[in-house]
Every structure is written in structure tokens, then in C-alpha cells.
């Protein structure tokens, strides 16, 4: 309960700062992007941090979600966004459809590629990312290399707030369930996990699909923020960005996957004077983190609001 009040307070503070003009539209855009990046990073963390697989093509699934949802809203609404009562349900259906299709793509990539391990899995996911991008580039309906524009704007601060909280809560609940524990078992020792009766392949594929679903939904939200998407938005470089967020934040903790993207999305503002040095400093931060704090900023720690409160156990009267 305290957590909910805290989130509402954060929202009220941001909104009132926005209304009083202290935070202009640019800052709000940054906060929205941070929200999307947080969901992307937490979903990537489920595969990379908690299951110990190495997926480096997450932006591909984001692209599937972005294009699917953008096609649905642009075709359905004809950019007539005047009536929010029609618009928002369509938007929700569209981003969920995007997520489902991304999940399906995740299944297509994940089911066969979970046979290959470690580095090879990384390469298959990378290739899948670029393959998805190539398919978009050659498909004329999707705008091909011209990109897809005219997407109605649905992503507002409120939408992202709700979206980020709901997604992170869903993923958190999954990670703290018995599935989450089997994922950690697979990460720590796949053979031992198999010996204790976990169906490791099924578990890995399921996590991969689940994670691709959230990447797809974030892609949908992202598309309705920018209103124009291009295949190059979702290249391998985009996937690398999320990897940096995740590993600097701490891949084995949900809080880390929240802290990382939040810092890196808002950091450019803190170092505005270093604008052109930004992309030189980011990778240096990454390398130094890896050398001096391999487990990332958060390590294994979690913020208290992430943890599921321990329920009071009732005394069983004899």
C-alpha cells in the first residue's frame, strides 16, 4: 500500500512540475523514454540475468511489437485520434497484439535456438534481430526502408507510468514464483537443475517468449511516442544499448534493471556540457563497472518495494 502511495506521489510531483513549467516537454519525453527503457531492460534481465542465457537481439522483438501495433492503429484509426474513447481501447488492443506477435517471434527464435548454448545463442539472437530488420526493410507494406509514419500519439506520461508499473509488477511476480526459482537454478547450474526435475528447455523457451512479449509491448508504446518508426531504430545497436543498461545496473536484480536505464536515459541531461563525449563516456562506465564491480550497481540487492512482502503466517492451533 505504501508503495502505491509512493508511486502516486512521484507521479503527482512530476506532473505538477510539468504543469508549473519547471519540467518542459523535453524532460517529460526523457522520463517517458526512461519508462520504456526500464520495461525493456527488466524483460531482457529475465533472460540474461535470471536465466543465464545470453540474448543480444532484444530490439528485434521490440521492432515486431512496434510495427504490429503501429499498423493496427494507423489502419484502424486513420489518424483520427479526436475521440480518446475509441482511441485508447484500440491502442491497448494494438500494443497487446504487438506483444503477442513479438512473443510468437520469440517462440520461433527461442524454441530451436535453445538447443545451442552460450555464445552461439548470442549469435542466433543477434542474427534474428538483423533478420527481422531485413524483413521489415524489404516489406513494402511496412514502409520498407522509408520507415512508417503517421502513427497516432497515444503514449503520454500517464500511459507510460501505468504501463511500466504493470509490466514490472507482472515480471516481478513471475520472477518470484516457482518459475523464477527454476530460472535461477538453470542459471546457476543447468545440469543440476535438470537433475532436480526442471524441464530446462521448456523453462528457457517460456522465459524467452515472456520476455519477447514485454519487448513487443514496449515497442508498441515506443512507436506511439515517436509517431514515426524506422527499421534502423531497432538495429543491433539498440539491443546493445539495453545490454549496457542491464549490466551496469546489475543483471541479477530487478532493481538493477530499473536503475541502469533510468540513469543512462537521464544522464545526458546531467552531463549536457559533455554532449559529444557522451558515447565515449558510456562505454567507459560499462568497462569500468565490469572490471571493478562485475555484478553491476545493484548486485543482488533489491529495493524494498520490489520484494514481495512476507505474509504473516497464522499460527496453526493444534
Amino acid at each position, binding site marked *: 500500500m505504501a508503495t502505491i502511495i509512493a508511486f502516486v506521489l512521484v507521479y503527482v510531483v512530476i506532473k505538477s512540475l510539468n504543469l508549473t513549467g519547471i519540467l518542459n516537454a523535453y524532460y517529460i519525453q526523457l522520463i517517458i523514454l526512461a519508462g520504456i527503457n526500464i520495461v525493456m531492460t527488466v524483460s531482457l534481465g529475465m533472460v540474461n540475468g535470471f536465466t543465464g542465457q*545470453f540474448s543480444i537481439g532484444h530490439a528485434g522483438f521490440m521492432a515486431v511489437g512496434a510495427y504490429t501495433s503501429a499498423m493496427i492503429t494507423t489502419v484502424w484509426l486513420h489518424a483520427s485520434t479526436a475521440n480518446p474513447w475509441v482511441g485508447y481501447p484500440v491502442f491497448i488492443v494494438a500494443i497487446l497484439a504487438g506483444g503477442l506477435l513479438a512473443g510468437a517471434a520469440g517462440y520461433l527464435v527461442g524454441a*530451436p*535456438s535453445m*538447443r*545451442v548454448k*552460450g*555464445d*552461439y545463442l*548470442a*549469435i*542466433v539472437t*543477434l*542474427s*534474428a534481430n*538483423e*533478420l527481422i*530488420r*531485413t*524483413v521489415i*526493410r*524489404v516489406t513494402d507494406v511496412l514502409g*520498407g*526502408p522509408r520507415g512508417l509514419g503517421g502513427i497516432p500519439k497515444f503514449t503520454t506520461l500517464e500511459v507510460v507510468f501505468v504501463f511500466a508499473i504493470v509490466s514490472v509488477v507482472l515480471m516481478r511476480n513471475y520472477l518470484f514464483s516457482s518459475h523464477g526459482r527454476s530460472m535461477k537454478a538453470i542459471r546457476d547450474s543447468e*545440469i543440476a537443475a535438470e537433475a532436480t526435475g526442471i524441464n530446462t528447455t521448456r523453462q528457457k523457451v517460456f522465459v524467452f517468449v515472456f520476455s519477447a512479449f514485454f519487448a513487443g509491448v514496449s515497442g508498441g508504446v515506443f512507436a506511439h511516442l515517436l509517431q514515426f518508426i524506422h527499421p534502423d531504430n531497432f538495429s*543491433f*545497436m539498440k539491443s*546493445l544499448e539495453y*545490454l*549496457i543498461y542491464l*549490466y551496469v545496473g546489475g543483471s541479477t536484480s530487478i532493481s538493477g534493471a530499473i536503475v541502469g536505464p533510468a540513469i543512462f536515459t537521464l544522464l545526458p541531461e546531467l552531463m549536457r556540457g559533455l554532449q*559529444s*563525449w557522451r*558515447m*565515449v563516456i*558510456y*562505454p*567507459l562506465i*560499462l*568497462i569500468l563497472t*565490469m*572490471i571493478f564491480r*562485475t555484478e553491476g550497481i545493484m548486485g543482488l540487492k533489491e529495493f524494498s518495494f520490489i520484494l514481495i512482502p512476507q505474509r504473516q503466517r497464522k499460527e496453526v492451533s493444534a
Partner: protein
Amino acid sequence: MGQFLQQLINGIQIGSIYALIALGYTIVYGIVRIINFAHADIFMVGAYMGFFLAPVMAKIFGGAFIPTIIAAMLITGLLGFVMEKLAYRPLRYKSRLSALITALGVSIFLENFCAMPFIFGPNFRKFPDLIVAKNIPIPGNLGLNISNVLLLDVGVSVILMVLLFWFVNKTLIGKQMRAVAFDKPTASLMGINIDIVISAAFIVGPALAGAGGILYGTTYGMLASPFLGIWPGLKAFIAAVLGGIGNIPGAVLGAYIMGISEAFATSVNSNLGYGIAFAILIGILLVRPSGLLGKFMPEKV
């Protein structure tokens, strides 16, 4: 028929450049089991070295090509050595995942650092003509287009490959490298200095990429930006995986498969040419999870 042969030749040409880059990936992977993502950017540095050194070399030696390629190889070799010392060595006994992430970090760092105006700058550069491009007349009426640049690309990469084979199979350090690749702890018990072997791998691999960079510049005649290494590097990396990463003949085989299939696909549609590499890779990894010539290693408890 002429069209077919022409695409085959183009494929062999680009395949030769991929092969030089792929060899570096595979050597480093074989020794330290790190996918050195920064390799693509070493290739880029090699290409830029050509741009900066060629006028100097032409002044000193008269001819530019051979001194430039040797100087570029030395510089990229040194860069690889320094990179390993600073970024990878502190992580040697940590998890392989952190080494992989560091490699990504080094790659992004090199790209963006070199794009700073006082290093290479972000702008397009015209690559100096190290040799004058000429078409070689081919008898018969197939309409083939073969230039001396093509022969140079193939020739230089074949010479370097032969040198590499000699180095790995005949020299002491080469034999040590193979021993370390086979079994690191045992090799070190036999008195092999692992540090020297790893440094050697990080010199030889990047030096080959540097040579690849010079050939790339000579072939295309331009350097787009310090980000130019990304896609050739990625393709070469995929070629190394295709052949079975860690396996030297596999990298060469994979590179030529990649180059030839790309040439054919590009002649159909340029976007297809871009994507074909990834499709082939996924297809082959599903059938042979450790690449064409790679050994499948069963997991032991």
C-alpha cells in the same frame, strides 16, 4: 553464365576481406573464449591508418601499398595488445559474460572515440589510391569485369593466410597457441606462459584485421565514418561462427561462403544481400550447432 561467374568472382573478392577479419575473431576466441566485438573496430582503425599513412609512406618509400599495409598491421597489432592488457586482462578470472560485455564496451568506445573530431573525425574520407585500378582484359565474350584490385585483395589475403598457417603450425609460439586453445590449464602446467600466448593472439588477430582494413579501403575507395567496421565486422564474425568458431580453416571457409552468398543475394536485391548472412547462419547452426568444421563438445558434469 557470365553474370554467374561475375558474381562468383565478386563474392570471392569480398570473401577474402571477410576471411582476414574472421581469422582474428577465431584466433582470439580459440585462445581466450571471448567474442572480441572490438575486432570490427580494429579493422576500422586499420582502414583509417591506410588513409593517414599512405601519403607518408609514399614520400618515404616511393611505393605506398606494401609499407602502408605493414605499418597498419603493426599499429593494429599494438592496439590489440594494449586493449587486451587494459580491458580484458583484469577480467580473465571473472565470468565470461562480463568479458563479453566488456568487449561490447570496448567496441562502442573505440567507435565513438575515433569519431571525435581530433582523432579521425566523423566525416567521409576518400581513401588514397594505393594502386591504380585497372581492368584486366579477359579473353572470350563473357563480359567479365576483373580488376587488378580484385587480384590484389585475393593475393594479399592468401599470402597472409599461408603466413598464418605457417605461424600457427611451425613456430614455437604458434604451437603454444594451439596447446593453450586445446587445454589451458594443462598447457600452463607444461610450462607455457599463458600471458605471452594470449598477448600473441591479440597481436596476430588484430594485425590481420588491419590488413583487411587496408584492402577494404583500396577496394571501395572511401571510408564512410569510424562506424564503418560494424557491418563487415559482424559479417566476418558470422563467417567465423559459420565455419566453427575457434577453427582456422573454418573461418576461411565460412568467409568465402558468406562473401559468395552475399554477392549473389545482392544481385537480386540489396536488402536481401544484407539479410542473407543471418539466414544462412541460423540455418546452419540449427543443423550443426557448433558450425561447419567445429567440434561438438558434449557437456561433462
